[in-house]
């Protein structure tokens, strides 16, 4: 069974466009939507409304940076500092091109950083490529054994 894609996005317009893009990509993976950082955290760690969901991590997290409650960088920090999730592929997806965001994103260990293009076709293509790369092409990290691997390409 295919692992789902976790899309963390609070802006309804971006959410709809992203979902449209993923739908067009022909990916068979389910898309789980979290509308803020806290909800995403609950999903990943099976807490809150997700308490008791079937175990398993998504194939990739598409993470917006500006999020209510727990923001994108905070969530990334939590993911990288928890043994269950520290190898989970995370792609930061945001409007901001600010270097400080980029720097913090990579310092905290995101696997990629994508600035949402204004141009629709470019945006579509970016979302589709990301979904395909991380959900299909990218080999999930092996179960921790010996040398750690942070999954960075």
């Amino acid at each position, binding site marked *: 069974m295919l692992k789902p894609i976790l899309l963390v996005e609070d802006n309804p317009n971006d959410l709809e*466009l992203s979902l449209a893009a993923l739908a067009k990509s022909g990916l068979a993976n389910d898309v789980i939507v979290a509308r803020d950082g806290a909800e995403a955290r609950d999903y990943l760690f099976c807490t809150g409304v997700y308490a008791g969901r079937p175990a398993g991590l998504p194939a990739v997290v598409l993470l917006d940076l500006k999020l209510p409650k727990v923001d994108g960088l905070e969530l990334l920090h939590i993911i990288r500092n928890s043994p269950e999730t520290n190898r989970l592929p995370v792609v930061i997806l945001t*409007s901001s091109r600010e*270097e400080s965001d980029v720097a913090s994103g990579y310092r905290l260990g995101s696997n990629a950083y994508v600035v949402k*293009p*204004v*141009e629709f076709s470019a945006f579509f293509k970016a979302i589709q490529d990301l979904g395909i790369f991380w959900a299909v092409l990218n080999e999930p990290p092996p179960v921790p054994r010996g040398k750690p691997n942070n999954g960075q390409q």
Partner: protein
Amino acid sequence: MSLGDTATVDLTNCDREPIHIPGSIQSHGFLLGLKLQPDGRLHVVTASENAAQYLSLPLDRILDAELNNLVEHDLVEALHKGLLSEGSAGDFVRFIGTARLPVSGSQRHDFQIVGHRLAELFILEFERTEHSVSQAELNAVLSNFVGSIEELDDRTALCQAVTSQIRALTGFDRIMLYQFDEEGHGTVLAEDRNDKLPSYLGLHFPATDIPQQARALYVLNRIRIIPDVDYEPSPLLSVPEMKDAPPLDLSLSILRSVSPIHREYMRNMGTVSSMSISLVTEGRLWGLISGHHHEPRTVPYLVRSASEVLSRITTSHLLALHRSSQMAHAIRLKSVHGQLLSFMAAGENYIDGLARHPVELLAVTGAQGAAIVVGERCILLGKTPSQQAVLAFAQWFSKRGREDVFATNQIELECGEVEELRTEASGILAISLSQVHRMQILWFRPEILQTVQWAGEPAKSEEFVNGVRQIHPRNSFSSWKEIVRGKSLAWTSVEIESAREFRSIVLEIVLKRAEELAEMASELESSNRELEAFSYSVSHDLRAPFRHISGFAELLLENEASRLSDTGRRHLATIAQSAQFAGLLVDSLLNFSRISRTQLEIHSMAMKPLVEDVWRDVVQQEIGERQVEMVIGDLPVVEADLNLLRQVWRNLISNAVKYTRPCDHARIEVSCEQTPDEYVFAVRDNGVGFEGEYAHKLFGAFQRLHRMEEFEGTGIGLANVRRIIARHNGRTWATGEVGKGAVISFSLPAVQSISRRGSVPDSEGTEAPQTPKLDA
């Protein structure tokens, strides 16, 4: 005094005459040098030759004699009391008493006896007196005088008072008082006389009239008298065991024989007898009171002492007057400083504040003219040399670069190359406000053109006597006029100090201004930063809605196209395109603002490989099917931020490619020229060019010189280039003509002053604050 034939005769010869050891005394008295014997008795070891006549004894009975055997017992007692008692050591002259001695057999004469110690000797001098005065009379004179001058607050009146008083006391034909200036020239300030001798009031005496060693002697021995210039000098003789002793030092002697030059000087003046009293203030010979008489004249020792006391009272009063006038002057200067300070502080520009108040500025140093020099600019106030001469001096002064304050009253000795200054500004007092920039304030005094009356001809005449070259003072004593060439009145220490103080005041103002400027600049910088942050956040937030407009329009086009009319589809496509373009503008704006916010990473980098690399990108991404000839000349290695320079080249080359699009044969040339200070890079194309008169608009953000339909783009490329080059301390400019191509140039300094590690981002558009670099 005679000199050998070969000796050069000049005015300074007098300075070498050892006047304190003449080896003889004048003949109106005699001298005994005594030595205390182990048994307590005083033996004569030295005597003037004329002692024999005065004491009616052969000289060999005087030399080596015991004092007791020569004079009365009372006198020896007085001597013991005055000179030998404890605590009476020290080289000052004491009055011992009077004695009546037999002169030429039966005749007896009154003598006043004074004594002083000279190392192990006791010098006794017996001076014959013609008449006597009572101590009470003198006391009355002194106390009257002190009372009468109490009210005087004017130097001239005080000088006149003491001059008249001393003449009344001594009975000389003429008493005059003169003062010495800094260079030793004398000016007669007061005079009291009868018609036997001419007036010298107001005349100037050259400094050479009184040789150096005489001036020193006059400070030591405050009163000298020559009763008869035609005296026969009486040599000093000593006992055989004193033969090898050095000549007797007569510095403190009242009978000391004077220089033959001085005696000739007196004869030339037509005076037979003279007396002079030193006016000493703070250890310096301030002036002299001198008396002259047309015939021989003695003045009793007590009268002389009284005159000396009068002189001392006068000098202390003069000093007090001088100090209070100095104080008043200093207070006046302080108030002038204060006024100027408020003028400087009030105006926008402190220099204007000074320039508008020339009277006060001149008062700072008591000058006739002034100039304010800033760089190559100068403002002239009052009586000054020409602007050209002032600037020439200013240049000389800053090259000299040693002192903050410079003063001369004879500029030709210091800066002779500017001929005009010699007479127009013989005196210059200058202050430098900065070692880095030329900022000076200069004050001028012209040459003293008024004639000065000298009481003698400064060039002493030479004369041969018996084939030996003799030097003697002027024979001609008529007033002689000389123009003091190339000299101004000297700047006093108070005036120089005032200039120095004024300098600190100006510096304070300048520094305060600089601080205010820096504060303003920093406020400007912070508001600029806020503006940048605001525009960044606005642009950033605009991005999402544009994306949504573009996205949903596309979705609509894709999913619902069949339900729309052609016009509806066209409108939707336009909406999508416009939103995309708006997004592109926002991205450009964000990039533009990032250029000023990011830190520079300065490294050595070769320009040529960079340009080649950029060209490859352009060929790949922009050229397409077109044929464009690219010529890349020799390019240097520079110190710069690689990423930013890549943006510069990308912008310039893309532009060149874009604007050569209509050309059949497009040609782009990249070149560099080096000057001593900078590298000048140029990108030349043969494209459509632009109208030269709009060249200045080319580098503004979102400025376009062509229609959107002709050439696409946001119009921010060259604004980016200008910003990046400005951050590298370079310049940008463009030349072009419609249809004849364009040349876009930029420069980079040959030596990059930005540190290699990078610099704090500065805000473009506001220049760095021009803080004057001061060396205060």
